[in-house]
C-alpha cells in the first residue's frame, strides 16, 4: 500500500487502478466499519451499565445481540416473505423482544445485577440453542450464520459504514443530550425520583437507543462479543469524572479495540491462510483483559445476606422424594428405551424381536441418563463450593474448558481414543476450575465478579473453539455433532465407566455431607468450626471437574442441566444436603434422558442432539424460574393455597437474593 494508492482511492478512485479501487471499496469501508461498530458497542454497553447500575450489563450478556441475530436468521429463512421490512428492522425487533423480556425479568427483581445478567444469559443461551437447531435443519441456507455470527468485517461497499455511522451519530447525540438523566439513573432510582426524574420512563427510553444501536451493528456485522462488556468495565476502572467522559471514552476505546482486533484478524488470516473473524478475536483478547482487571480490583458491590421473613418451619419432602423421582426416572428411561417413532408412526420396541436395535439404543439412553446425573451433581458441587446458587459448570466456563481441550486434542493429534479425549477434557476442565477457584477465593463476597470472570473464561474458550472449528475441514463435522450434544457416539463400556464414576461421586458427596453443609456457610465460619476449607474446596472441585468433563464427553458443553437440576431439586423442596444430592442427580438424569428421547422422536426422521434439546428445555425452564417473583412480594401470595403453605415453609428458595433491593420490601421483623 503506497501513499499514491491512498491518495487516489480516498475519494473517487479511477477505475483503471485496481489497488485504488480495492482501497476505496474494501479496505477503507472495513476500517470505518470497525471503528464505528466498535464505538457503537462500547457506547451501548456503557449506557446499559450506567442506567441499570449493573457492571454485568452489555449487549451480549443481556441477550440483546442474540435476539437480533435470531430474528435475522428467521428473516433469512423466511426469504421473500420477510422482505417487506429491511433487515435492520428485523434485527431491531428481535433485539427489542429479547431486551423487553430481560427487562421484565429484571424489573421483578429490582434490577438485581446478577439476576438481570443471568436472565440475559439464559435468553441468549436459549436463542443460540434455537439458532443451532435452525442451522442443523437448514444447513444450506444458514451455513453463513456460523461464520457471520462471529463478527466478520469484510466489506465490499460503503453501505454498512454509512448505516452504522449515521445511527451511531444519532445515538451519540441523544445520549450526550441526556447525560444528566443517565448520571442520575446511575446514582439510584430514589435519588433520581426525588429530584424529579421519571426514572422508569427515562431508563426505558435510554435503553431503547442502546438496543437500536446494538441491533444495527448486529444486522451489519454479526455478534461481536465482549466489546460492549469489557470496554466500559475498563473505562470505569480509570474512574472517569463524568457521564459524558464515560460515554465518550467507552465509544473511543471500543472503536480502537475493534479496529485493533480486526487488523489482527486480517493479519492472522493472511499468515495462516485461514479465515479468522474479528469477533472471535475480541473475545480472545477482551476476556483475559477483563479477567485480569477484575482480579486486580474490587467491585464495590458486596451482596447482603438474604434476610427473608416468614413465620414457620420447613415442610421437607422427606424420603418419599428420592423414591418418587427414581420411579419417574425408571418410567422415562423405559419410554426412551422402548418407544420409538418411524415415518409411519409410534412403535413399541420388542427387545426379544429386535435385539440389535435395543442394543443400539441401550448405550445411548444410559449415556444420556448418567451424563445428566453427572453434570447435575457437578453443578450442585460447584454451587456449594463457590457459595452461590447461580454458579454452574456451564456458566463458570468449566464445561467450556473440557470442550476446548477435547477439540484441540482432536484437531492436533487426529483420531484419539475416547479415553484419551476424556483425559484431555478432564485436564481442560480442571484448569478452568482452578482459575475460577482462584478467582472466587479472591472475591469471596463478590459473586458478580466471579460470575463475570466465569463468563469471560467461557466466552474466551468458546471463541478459541470457534476459530479452530471454522478452519477445520472434515473433522469439524464430527466435532460439531458432538459439541451440540449428540449421544450417538457413546459405547456401552463407556457408559459403564461413567456409571461407576457417578456412583463413586455420589457416595463421596453423601459421605462428606457434613463438611459440604459447613462450606455453605462461607469459608470463615466453616474454618472457625474446624473445617479445613481449602482441602474440602479443592477436593470438591476436582470431583466437580471430573464429573463435568466426563458428562461433557457425552452431552456436549452446553446442556444447562448442571445449572437447572439443583434449582429444580430445591423447587421440589429437597432441603437437606442428602436429599438435595439424590434429588439433583435423579432430576438431572430425568431431564437428560427425556431430552435425548425427545430429540430422537420429536422430529422424525431428523434426530436432534439430546444436549441441544436439554439446552433448549433447560434455558427455557430457567428463564421461567428467574422470572418468578421474589419471595415476600404481594404477587406470590395470590398464586394458590399450596403456595401459601409454601410461604410458611420457606417461599421460593429456588434462587438466592443477591441484592439488597429485594430485602427492602419485606416485612422484616427485627
Amino acid at each position, binding site marked *: 500500500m503506497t501513499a499514491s494508492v491512498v491518495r487516489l482511492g480516498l475519494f473517487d478512485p479511477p477505475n483503471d487502478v485496481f489497488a485504488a479501487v480495492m482501497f476505496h471499496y474494501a479496505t477503507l469501508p472495513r476500517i470505518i466499519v470497525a471503528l464505528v461498530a466498535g464505538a457503537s458497542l462500547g457506547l451501548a454497553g456503557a449506557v446499559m451499565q450506567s442506567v441499570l447500575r449493573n457492571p454485568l450489563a452489555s449487549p451480549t450478556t443481556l441477550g440483546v445481540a442474540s435476539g437480533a441475530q435470531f430474528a435475522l436468521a428467521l428473516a433469512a429463512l423466511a426469504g421473500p416473505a420477510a422482505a417487506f421490512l429491511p433487515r435492520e428492522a428485523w434485527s431491531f425487533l428481535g433485539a427489542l423482544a429479547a431486551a423487553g423480556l430481560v427487562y421484565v425479568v429484571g424489573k421483578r427483581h429490582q434490577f438485581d445485577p446478577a439476576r438481570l445478567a443471568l436472565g440475559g444469559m439464559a435468553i441468549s443461551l436459549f436463542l443460540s440453542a434455537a439458532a443451532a437447531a435452525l442451522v442443523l435443519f437448514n444447513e444450506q441456507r444458514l451455513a453463513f450464520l456460523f461464520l457471520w455470527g462471529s463478527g466478520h468485517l469484510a466489506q465490499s461497499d460503503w453501505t454498512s459504514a454509512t448505516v452504522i455511522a449515521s445511527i451511531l451519530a444519532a445515538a451519540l447525540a441523544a445520549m450526550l443530550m441526556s447525560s444528566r438523566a443517565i448520571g442520575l439513573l446511575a446514582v439510584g432510582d430514589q435519588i433520581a425520583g426525588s429530584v424529579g426524574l421519571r426514572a422508569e420512563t427515562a431508563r426505558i427510553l435510554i435503553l431503547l437507543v442502546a438496543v437500536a444501536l446494538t441491533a444495527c451493528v448486529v444486522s451489519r456485522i454479526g455478534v461481536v462479543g465482549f466489546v460492549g462488556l469489557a470496554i466500559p468495565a475498563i473505562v470505569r476502572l480509570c474512574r472517569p469524572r463524568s457521564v459524558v467522559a464515560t460515554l465518550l471514552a467507552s465509544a473511543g476505546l471500543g472503536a480502537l479495540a475493534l479496529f485493533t482486533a480486526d487488523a489482527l484478524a486480517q493479519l492472522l488470516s493472511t499468515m495462516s491462510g485461514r479465515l479468522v473473524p474479528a469477533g472471535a478475536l475480541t473475545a480472545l483478547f477482551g476476556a483475559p483483559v477483563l479477567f485480569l482487571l477484575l482480579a486486580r480490583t474490587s467491585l464495590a458491590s458486596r451482596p447482603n445476606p438474604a434476610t427473608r421473613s416468614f413465620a*414457620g*418451619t*420447613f415442610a421437607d419432602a422427606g424420603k418419599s422424594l428420592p423414591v418418587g423421582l427414581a420411579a419417574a426416572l425408571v418410567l422415562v428411561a423405559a419410554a426412551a428405551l422402548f418407544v420409538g417413532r418411524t415415518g409411519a408412526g409410534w412403535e413399541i420396541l420388542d427387545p426379544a424381536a429386535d435385539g440389535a436395535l435395543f442394543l443400539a439404543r441401550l448405550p445411548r439412553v444410559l449415556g444420556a441418563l448418567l451424563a445428566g446425573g453427572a453434570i447435575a451433581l457437578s453443578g450442585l458441587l460447584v454451587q456449594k463450593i463457590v457459595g452461590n446458587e447461580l454458579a454452574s459448570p456451564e456458566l463458570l466456563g468449566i464445561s467450556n474448558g473440557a470442550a476446548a481441550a477435547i477439540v484441540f486434542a482432536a484437531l492436533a493429534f487426529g483420531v484419539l481414543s475416547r479415553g484419551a479425549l476424556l483425559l484431555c477434557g478432564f485436564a481442560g476442565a480442571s484448569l478452568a476450575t482452578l482459575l475460577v477457584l482462584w478467582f472466587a477465593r479472591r472475591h469471596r463476597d463478590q459473586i458478580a465478579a466471579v460470575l463475570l470472570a466465569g463468563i469471560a473464561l467461557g466466552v474466551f474458550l468458546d471463541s478459541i473453539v470457534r476459530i479452530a472449528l471454522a478452519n477445520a475441514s472434515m473433522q469439524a463435522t464430527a466435532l460439531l455433532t458432538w459439541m451440540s450434544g449428540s449421544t450417538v457416539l457413546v459405547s456401552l463400556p463407556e457408559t459403564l465407566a461413567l456409571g461407576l464414576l457417578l456412583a463413586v461421586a455420589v457416595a463421596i458427596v453423601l459421605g462428606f455431607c457434613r463438611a459440604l*453443609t459447613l462450606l455453605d456457610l462461607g469459608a470463615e465460619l466453616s474454618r*472457625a468450626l*474446624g*473445617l479445613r476449607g481449602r482441602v474440602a474446596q479443592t477436593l470438591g472441585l476436582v470431583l466437580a471437574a471430573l464429573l463435568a468433563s466426563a458428562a461433557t464427553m457425552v452431552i456436549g458443553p452446553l446442556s444447562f442441566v448442571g445449572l437447572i437440576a439443583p434449582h429444580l431439586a430445591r423447587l421440589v423442596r429437597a432441603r437437606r444436603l442428602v436429599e438435595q444430592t439424590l434429588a439433583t442427580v435423579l432430576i438431572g438424569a430425568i431431564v437428560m434422558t427425556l431430552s435425548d428421547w425427545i430429540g430422537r422422536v420429536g422430529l422424525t426422521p431428523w434426530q436432534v442432539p439430546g444436549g441441544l434439546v436439554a439446552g433448549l428445555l433447560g434455558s427455557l425452564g430457567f428463564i421461567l424460574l428467574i422470572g418468578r417473583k421474589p419471595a415476600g412480594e404481594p404477587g406470590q401470595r395470590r398464586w394458590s393455597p399450596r403456595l401459601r403453605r409454601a410461604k410458611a415453609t420457606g417461599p421460593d428458595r429456588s434462587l438466592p437474593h443477591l441484592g439488597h433491593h429485594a430485602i427492602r420490601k419485606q416485612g422484616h421483623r*427485627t
Partner: protein
Amino acid sequence: MAFAPILDARVPVASAAAGAASFQLKNAGYAVAGTRILAPLDLAIPAGRFVALIGHNGSGKSTLLSLLARQLVPSEGEIAFAGKSLVSYGQRDFARRIGWLPQQPPAAANMTVAEVAKLGRYPWRGAFMRHGEDDRRAVAEALTKVGLAGMSERAMTSLSGGERQRAWLAMLLAQQPACLLLDEPTAALDMKHQLEVLKLLQRLRGEHELTIVMAIHDIGMAIRFCDHLVALKAGRPIFAGSPEALAKPDVLSGIYDLPIGTVRPSEAGPTVVYPL
C-alpha cells in the same frame, strides 16, 4: 454433665482469678500491602473474663479479633492461647477451644435453628463420626440456655434479629469452647435485643467459666456488662483495665478524640456516657 469433656482443656478458674492470660500477644501486628492495620503489640487477655474491645471505626478491633480467631495470620509476631502458639493447634482442635462469630453471620437461609446449633458439634465429631447421646444433649442444652428450645424446628429466616443472634450463640455453646470471640454481636439489634443478648452472654460466662472477647461500639453497654476493657486507637492499644477505670471523662475523651462526659444517675444504676 454434658460439658465435662472439655473442662480439662480450659484454663483453671483459680489461675483466672490470679490474672492468668488466655490469649497472649507477643509483638503481634498485622499489615496489608505495606499498610499497618494493627501495630505490633504485646497484650494479655485475662482468662475467665468478659472482655470488651472498644475504639473508633477502623481502630483495629475486628482485625484483632480475626487474629485471635486465626481468621487472619499475623504478619509479624506471635499469638498464643493457653500457653501454646496458635499455629500449633490443629483445625478442629482449635475449634474445640475457641468459638468465633463474624459480625454478619451467614443467612443460613435453608436451615433450621436446631441444624445451626448442631453445626457446633463438627469440631468434636468431624465429617464421619456418628453423633451420639452426648452430642444430642449438648445441642439440646445449648438451645435451652439461649431460650430457643421451643423454636428448634423454626427456619432461621423466620427469626427476629435477636433470636437469630441467639441461634448462632447456641451453635457456639454446642461447640463447648473455652473462649468466645464475638465481633459486634449487638450491632444489628435494637436496644431491647442488645440487652437480651448481653445479659445472656454475661450469664453464660458465669455458668461455663468462659472467656468472652467481644468488639462493641456502645461504651455504656461495655461498661455495664464487661469486667475488662481494652481500647484501641489507630491500631494501638491505649487502655486496658476495669470499667471503673475507663468510665472517666478524660480517659474516654482520649480514646475517641472527643470531649466526653459521664454521669451515674443513681448508685445502683448504670453509668451513662455522652459526647459533650
